[in-house]
């Protein structure tokens, strides 16, 4: 087991390295104009551009630029090209917002998905089952920013039930204000996943419901409730938990960029969206690495947990 964990962690480091190189290359090799040209502005002289090139190190070879940039990422001295702010500080400011959104939404979609999945499995074939299936499919077919914009406008601005976007610090306006600001973003983001989870759980439950050990549990005289929750659900949940780990990583790592932007939460994803518009390479690079880190981390955790549960995986 120890060797498996070490191998996975080593693989994680290599993948992160590859991601950082690729992201760096996207902006340095693909022709999109010199960053020095953009920083100098439209009415600049070649001398000014040369000076900026020297100052920021754009005249150095690409690999030297890569190494210095990565050093700055590591030490937290990475500076934005567009507005000269500290990128690492900006990301740190966005982290609590992104985490609040991702964690709340992930808990919501897990709870809702499980509840609906179990409910539809027990009602398989009836009209409630069909109804939930249809709603689930509609949920996964909607662009999240569209749903978010409609919810924010009609429930927030027009009906005045919720605030019209924005983030509220717990320390400033209290817990209730924070929750009020987060309810719509949580719900909208979770809507995308609830459908998938309930459908996966439903099919898992239907697969296990006829297993011998379930029949044994019934034969022992256990209540239906106990059979469903302790025997059927417990086994059906394992694949869901795996899925949840991967999706949670994806949402933390930039998957919530659209939700953040549409609700103006000022999280890490929105910082990315704003930076890319200005072709500001340092924040784009840093946020991509930030996102890749969580995706790879959650992937690795899921694999390790799986290997701990199933010896066949770590030996293969």
């Amino acid at each position, binding site marked *: 087991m120890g060797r498996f964990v070490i191998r996975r962690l080593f*693989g994680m480091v290599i*993948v*992160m390295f*590859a*991601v950082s190189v*690729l992201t760096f290359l*996207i*902006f340095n090799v*693909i*022709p*999109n*104009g010199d960053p020095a040209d953009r920083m100098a502005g439209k009415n600049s002289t070649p001398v000014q551009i040369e000076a900026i090139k020297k100052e920021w190190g754009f005249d150095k070879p690409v690999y030297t630029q890569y190494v210095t940039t990565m050093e700055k990422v590591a030490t937290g001295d990475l500076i934005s090209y567009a507005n000269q702010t500290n990128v690492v500080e900006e990301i740190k400011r966005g982290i609590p917002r992104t985490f609040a959104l991702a964690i709340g939404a992930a808990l919501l979609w897990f709870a809702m998905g499980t509840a609906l999945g179990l409910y539809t499995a027990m009602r398989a074939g009836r009209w409630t089952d069909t109804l939930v299936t249809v709603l689930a*499919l*509609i949920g*996964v*077919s*909607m*662009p*999240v*920013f*569209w749903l978010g*914009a*409609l919810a924010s*406008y009609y429930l927030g*601005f027009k009906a005045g039930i919720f605030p019209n976007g924005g983030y509220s610090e717990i320390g400033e306006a209290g817990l209730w204000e924070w929750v009020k600001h987060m309810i719509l973003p949580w719900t909208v983001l979770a809507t*995308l*996943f609830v459908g998938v989870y309930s*459908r*996966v759980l439903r*099919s*898992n439950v239907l697969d296990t419901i006829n297993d011998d050990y379930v029949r044994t549990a019934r034969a022992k005289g256990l209540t239906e409730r106990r059979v469903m929750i302790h025997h059927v659900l417990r086994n059906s949940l394992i*694949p869901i938990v*795996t*899925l949840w780990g*991967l*999706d949670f990583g*994806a*949402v933390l*790592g*930039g*998957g*919530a*960029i*659209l939700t953040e932007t549409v609700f103006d939460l000022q999280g890490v994803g929105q910082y*990315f*969206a704003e930076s*890319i*518009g200005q*072709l500001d390479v340092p924040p*784009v690079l840093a946020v*991509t690495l930030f*996102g*890749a880190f969580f*995706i*790879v981390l959650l*992937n690795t955790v*899921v*694999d390790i947990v*799986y290997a701990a549960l199933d010896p066949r*995986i770590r030996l293969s």
Partner: protein
Amino acid sequence: MSIADSSVSSDLSPVADGGQIEAAPDPGVSPGALALRRLRRNRAALAFGGLFIVLVALALAAPLWADVAGTTPAKNHLSDTVVVDGKTQQVVTFDGVPISPTWRDKFFLGADTNGRDVAVRLLYGARNSLFIGITAALITTFLAVLLGTLAGYFRGWTDAIISRSLDVLWAFPVLLLGVALGVSLALGGLKIGPLEIQGGSKWIPTLIIGVVGVVYLARPIRGQVLSLREKEFVEAARAQGAGPVRIMFSELLPNLASTILVFFPLLVANSILLEAALSFLGAGVQPPEPSWGTMLADGIVLLSTSPHLTIVPGLMLVLTVLSLNIFGDGVRDALDPRAKVRLEHS
């Protein structure tokens, strides 16, 4: 956005014995015919498959409607007026508020802030959105089948290189990668050898979406090839002297068909959603070219004065993606009732 199997971790082959059809009750019926029969019995899937075809037909008929409306998708009517129920109305008022749906030939679904006909743009936008969705899904399928088959068939070094590259792609936050590539390529264009793509071309989002999706399909294909290559029929072909190319094309590829068919509608749906997301963030289709994503991006900021600019393209998009998802579900149930393919976006 990820396609993952629900029952195994990402390192295992998600659809490894996929394509196995339950024993046919009638020995004379081929698995394909059996699947078709099952699909034909699924009325919801057929209805939504038909709806998708209608939507494609509408997109193809865009110039006809443009003729009826007497305009083009890019033509501004800022200072024009239109007569509705005997009343003359400004297409765009002096406050900059565009006309709502008139339900007449002109400005059937209203106008946007430039005075452009929303219905005409919606249909031309459908062409772009559907083109990008379908072409990107084709690119994804081609690359994924190629890479997955090579990796699964040759194993060893080939597999190591392909699989590790896919691991890196898998680690990328999909949207961030797509947006970064989209913005950077939209400015500079793309040059691969003799192939040169202009900065504003819709081929750029198409290629990005196509490449980004490869990771989801290549893994299941590889897993399936790994198990198929050990089967007796492949051994028989090899014993007859068939080379790797022949085995891959005439022995393995037909057996991958059901996996490809199951994934394809879902890939198209997902590509359309990704196009919308990229365009919303300014990294997809470039203005003035319409697509549902760009129309939404323009509309959302005007939600308070002109909700039709958000609701109309959004509903069209949801309808299209929904029809593909339901049809894809039906195809999956027909081909492989026990498979657990899923596709999800974020």
